[in-house]
């Protein structure tokens, strides 16, 4: 994934700063609560929401079960429509392919549609290393790019910024990238949007190469679909002569008709709209012989694996590949709301990031091994997910992988992971507890000891116990555990087994 996240500390440390940043907390709370309430309303309008959700789940599962078949079908359809399909096993290969394609056009700059896949592989940085400038054209991505910042949300990458901060970024940096911000720019939404429009228009009209991702790919027709709100995507997909789309292999649906489900559930889940303002669909190139029709003259589809096949091999974890990146789970997550997106150390933050990053990247790094624990398992994410990904189930499954190791697939090969370091004390405690809990006598003895020594219990704990008692009092141990009261008052009714 993007080099900008390499060397991230574990989630708890990264989250600590965010929790204490009151501006950030305020920005996030306001933004997530607003969209959360709107989504709930938009979803409640549909009587058949539960069935749409179930249909979405089934379509994705059916596709994933025969992904190899549908990918070949897609390749044939795209090729027949004049496009070229490239296969990229990992980020490096995808970046090499895209850089090569851009170089072959002779261009030194490209315009980009908002795309998670290209962020995942760090495409902008890779292109910059080749001397190619990539301009983000989505408003929020533009803010992140101009601010030399990292995205913190899937749909609203600049969610951590407020209007005042955005104004300052525009006024300070637009001139370095192209048309400067107008003098006396204020922080009203209309003025900020107009400044971005003027700045971007210049780039749209000049660009010869566009780069996109896709929300969906239809296997039977070879059609790609981008769903957006601003219209910048439509510009990038239609104006340039060459279009390069980098798409994760899990974005497939078998038939055109399957879109019916997702084009209802995606906008309501992500922006709380009944329908998004722009849905762009394209199949290959404009007619190669006559030059008739719209769209690019050359179209390249780069199919990205980058850990997806390995994820698909895991029976519990594979449901993460159903994700349609709506970000409803982020907006409803109490942990995301307080920790912010950057703490997740990946372009995929929030609950989906916590189950996707440790699968796509593995659990070897500190941040990836800590992500499965970045949740209280409250289940709000599962509730809102339009493709019913049981995120808590996958989190617990990945926790198991971290503490116990076990079989996983890495780059197509089955390997057995060893238990992660740093969990030795916890493992010992769990073993001891399991021992006592299968022996009621041992448990009762421990309870009695705790009750007898209760006057000596400290109010605050030292060492690791501080994690609890820094912010909360400890419960007082009662004089007598329940089981002793029961024996004393009802003794003999059910003798100790």
């Amino acid at each position, binding site marked *: 994934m993007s080099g900008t996240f390499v060397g991230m500390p574990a*989630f*708890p440390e990264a*989250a600590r700063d965010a*929790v*204490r940043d009151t501006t950030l*907390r305020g920005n996030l709370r306001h933004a997530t609560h607003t969209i959360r309430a709107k989504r709930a309303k938009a979803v409640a309008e549909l009587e058949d929401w539960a069935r749409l959700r179930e249909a979405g789940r089934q379509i994705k599962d059916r596709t994933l079960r025969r992904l190899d078949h549908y990918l070949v079908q897609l390749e044939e359809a795209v090729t027949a429509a004049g496009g070229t399909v490239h296969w990229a096993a990992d980020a490096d290969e995808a970046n090499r392919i895209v850089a090569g394609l851009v170089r072959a056009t002779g261009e030194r700059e490209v315009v980009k549609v908002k795309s998670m896949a290209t962020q995942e592989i760090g495409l902008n940085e890779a292109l910059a290393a080749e001397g190619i400038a990539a301009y983000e054209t989505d408003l929020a991505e533009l803010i992140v790019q101009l601010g030399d910042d990292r995205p913190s949300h899937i749909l609203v990458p600049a969610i951590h910024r407020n209007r005042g901060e955005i104004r300052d970024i525009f006024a300070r940096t637009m001139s370095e990238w192209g048309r400067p911000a107008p003098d006396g720019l204020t922080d009203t939404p209309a003025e900020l949007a107009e400044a971005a429009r003027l700045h971007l228009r210049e780039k749209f009209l000049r660009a010869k190469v566009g780069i996109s991702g896709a929300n969906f790919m239809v296997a039977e027709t070879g059609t790609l679909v981008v769903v957006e709100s601003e219209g910048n995507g439509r510009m990038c997909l239609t104006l340039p002569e060459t279009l390069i789309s980098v798409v994760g292999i899990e974005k497939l649906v078998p038939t055109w008709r399957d879109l019916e489900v997702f084009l209802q559930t995606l906008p309501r889940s992500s922006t709380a709209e009944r329908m998004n303002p722009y849905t762009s669909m394209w199949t290959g190139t404009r007619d190669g012989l006559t030059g008739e029709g719209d769209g690019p003259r050359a179209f390249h589809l780069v199919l990205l694996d980058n850990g997806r096949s390995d994820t698909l091999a895991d*029976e*519990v974890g594979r449901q993460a590949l159903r994700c349609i990146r709506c970000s409803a789970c982020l907006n409803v997550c*109490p*942990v995301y709301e*307080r920790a912010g997106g950057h703490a997740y150390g990946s372009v995929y933050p929030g609950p989906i990031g916590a189950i996707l990053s440790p699968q796509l990247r593995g659990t070897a790094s500190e941040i990836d091994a800590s992500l*499965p*624990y970045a*949740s*209280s*398992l*409250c*289940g*709000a994410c599962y*509730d809102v997910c339009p493709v019913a990904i049981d995120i808590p*189930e996958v989190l*617990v499954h990945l*926790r*198991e*992988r971290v*503490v*116990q190791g076990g079989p996983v697939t890495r780059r197509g090969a089955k390997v057995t992971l060893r238990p992660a370091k740093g969990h030795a004390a*916890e*493992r010992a405690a*769990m073993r001891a*507890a*399991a021992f*006592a*809990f*299968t022996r*009621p006598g041992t*448990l009762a003895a421990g*309870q009695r000891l*705790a009750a007898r020594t209760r006057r000596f219990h400290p109010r605050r704990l030292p060492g690791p116990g501080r*994690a*609890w008692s*820094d*912010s*909360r*009092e*400890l*419960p007082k*141990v*009662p004089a007598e*555990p*329940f*089981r002793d*009261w*029961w*024996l004393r008052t*009802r003794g003999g*009714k*059910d003798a*100790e*087994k």
Partner: protein
Amino acid sequence: MRVALFLTCVNDTLYPDTGRAVVKLLERLGVDVDFPAGQTCCGQAHYNTGYRHRAEPLARHFAEVFAGYDAVVTPSGSCGAMVRELYPRMGARARAEGRGTSLTSALAPVVPKTYELTEFLVDVLGVTDVDAYYPHRVTYHPTCHGLRSLGLGERPTRLLAQVKGLDLVELPGADECCGFGGTFSVKNPDVSAAMGLDKVRAAESTGAGVLCAADNSCLMHIGGTLARLDSAMRPVHLAEILASTEEEQLV
């Protein structure tokens, strides 16, 4: 009907008052309730922290201890969800790992007959008015596993609404997690504490004197936060409110 109380290890050790309240309440409703002394822990903390294999013997132990009963009642939404939602899943995982159906068949009998307290009252006994008296202003926090895993819905508030003298006030953002989350509370202490603080502030904004929930794990976290803030608000388990009567008032 042979009814067993599964109190849970946390309540047994730290909150015996909740256990006494459940016994008192059920006996008042004419239920002959037993506390099988062999009971220990459902294995939830093990399972949720990633030690599924360590949770398996605890689940088997649970199934053995409660085998002879018609109903198992627990005053904990999360432990109830462990048995009902996660025991079947544990069995399925063992099967998928090629370990046969022995775990599934060992656990299957206890799964459908395990009830969270409010389910047992409303669905099995068919009561919402339990003749309780509790003259306080109360706000109710529906804990996540009760709310989303078990789908307790309005059962707890229907019960509370019938309590004489009780003034039930709505908790803003009630469905938001309090931040406990078992080992989450110590693995991510900063986020957990921030969530707890927000929950406490929302509760205090209601003007209630009592914060009620049907799970003492969450109340331990919320109550610990209240105590650290020297708040006048008290955390009280739902069972203790329902057990309280005019003759024998719990405070």
